[in-house]
């Protein structure tokens, strides 16, 4: 158990390190650097050299990587390409907004998805399942900007209930985003519920067909007791990993949804940074998102280990 834990933690660290190398190398390979972006057409001769010296861009790639990585570990990503804005404060603001959006979607979406998944799984190939599963395919496949557009058309333009876009500035207190962020949350919920629900459904079907459930049935255990006591605890275990992927997806900047609703989260910051060719911000954001992804998946794996009796005893039995 401890071995497994240590190995899993080490893997996480290695992955984050590799990500940082990939990002840094990727940005190195792309033409242009922070100086050519800021100076634009003046970027030549002495001016360019001075700028590079000031920002430390004249050092070797390895040196620059080390100082960037050392900063990143402490949560310091330096200044944006304009030379003034501190990236960490700006990013923190957007992260807060993205967390708000993710939180809104998760609080409603996860219970709903698990409920629908269990219902569909238990009623396999009968009416509730066919209805829910078909709806899930639609929710999963229709592009986010299409469902967002339909939602705006109905809720904002025809019914006039909610504003079509978020006008609250990025640094406003969280409560100000109510109710403006509801349409964005609805679109996210549609996609995530479909994914989690499908996973839960197939897991429920698998467990309900397993030998120990058959055994319980043959012993005459009442149906609902089998479902709640025997089947669901292990059927819901795989849901942890899907929920983790969903959390990572939500925190990783839901670019399209944020752009459609003009929501000031990480996703929009990313698009803006790309259009401004602001390499330091892009690097910082990608690093942050990738680290979140690794961390969330790590937590999910540890949780499934904790809750899964089979994984827990595997090592003990081996001894």
């Amino acid at each position, binding site marked *: 158990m401890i071995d497994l834990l240590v190995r899993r933690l080490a893997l996480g660290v290695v992955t984050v390190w590799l990500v940082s190398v990939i990002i840094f190398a990727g940005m190195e390979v792309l033409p242009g650097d922070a100086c050519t972006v800021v100076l634009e057409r003046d970027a030549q001769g002495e001016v360019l050299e001075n700028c590079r010296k000031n920002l430390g861009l004249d050092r070797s790639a390895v040196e620059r990587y080390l100082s960037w990585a050392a900063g990143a570990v402490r949560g310091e990503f330096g200044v944006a390409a304009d030379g003034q804005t501190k990236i960490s404060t700006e990013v923190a603001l957007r992260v807060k907004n993205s967390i708000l959006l993710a939180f809104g979607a998760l609080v409603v979406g996860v219970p709903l998805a698990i409920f629908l998944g269990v219902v569909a799984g238990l009623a396999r190939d009968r009416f509730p399942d066919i209805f829910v599963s078909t709806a899930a395919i639609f929710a999963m*496949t229709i592009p986010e900007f299409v469902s967002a557009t339909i939602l705006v058309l109905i809720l904002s333009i025809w019914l006039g209930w909610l504003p079509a876009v978020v006008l609250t500035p990025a640094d406003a207190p969280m409560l100000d985003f109510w109710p403006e962020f509801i349409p964005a949350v609805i679109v996210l919920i549609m996609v995530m519920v479909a994914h989690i629900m499908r996973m839960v459904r197939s897991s429920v079907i698998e467990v309900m067909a397993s030998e120990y459930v058959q055994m319980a049935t043959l012993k005459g255990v009442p149906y609902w007791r089998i479902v709640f006591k025997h089947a669901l605890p292990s059927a819901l275990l795989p849901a942890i990993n899907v929920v983790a992927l969903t959390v990572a997806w939500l925190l990783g900047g839901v*670019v399209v949804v944020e752009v459609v609703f003009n929501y000031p989260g990480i996703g929009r910051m990313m698009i803006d940074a790309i259009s401004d060719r602001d390499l330091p911000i892009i690097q910082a954001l990608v690093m942050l998102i990738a680290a979140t992804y690794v961390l969330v998946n790590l937590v999910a794996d540890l949780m499934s280990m904790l809750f899964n009796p089979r994984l827990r005893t595997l090592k003990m039995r081996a001894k």
Partner: protein
Amino acid sequence: MTDAATQSAQARRPSMTIRMLQVLRDLVRRPSGLIGLFLVVMHVVVAIFSPWFVPYDFKALDSSLILAAPTPEHILGTDALGRDVLTRVLLGGREALWVCFLAIPLTMIWGGLVGVYLGLRGGWVDEIAMRIVDAFLALPGILPLMVLVFVFGAGNEVLIPTLAFFFGIPVIRVARGATHDVVARDYVLAARARGHSRASIMWRELLPNTLDVMMVEGAMRLSWMLLTFSSLSFLGFGVTPPTPDWGQMISEARVYMSLAPWGVLGPMIALSSLIIGVNLTADALAKTLGIDRTRKAVV
């Protein structure tokens, strides 16, 4: 043992066409497969032949008909520049289908070969490669694509390799997993015992036996790639105007949605029906071949 294995390996190959036809037949027998395939074929046919039967020139501006409501002459109305929406809807899937239909085979070939190789090879090579795969999977999906398109432009010579590269990475994992499922079977052991090279084992034993998983994976990746392509185009990182594309059309028409909702409806229905069609087909294919697709959902 040797004879039997060789025979079965030989017997597999000529039956490939027949097997594909059987799969197709089983696919069409499922309602979802039939509907899905119908939608896909319809879109492909329209994409190929639309230049010959569209009612107007897709770039023809008409300043007297800006955001005009649907009329018999312009069945879906006109857009903000007075262009016929129906014409642009009919042409709007060509780029997406062209790019994705070229990129998906590339994706499956490179991801599939690397994955099968790693699954067979194992050891430290596999260990290191999988760490790199993990690292790439941690990158936020659409962002590397946006950066590359922004820097190098949205030409097909940029989009196709980029999409194929990034979509191939999760395929490595799937192909490797599928290889692990068959690599310990008797026929692989027999091939090893006969002293076949790794390349020969991959080609003769592993690739045919991971094909089912890869077909389902390919169909699924296609629907995600179409989604990604149109998202890029919606965000302004796709085809260059005036080439019509659904994602871009939706993004343009959204602005005038309260005045002219017909501008978004056409491209939205077209795009959604294509992606739903591909997805239904992938789903039916998975059921036909007995592969649980939901296990590999997300990412």
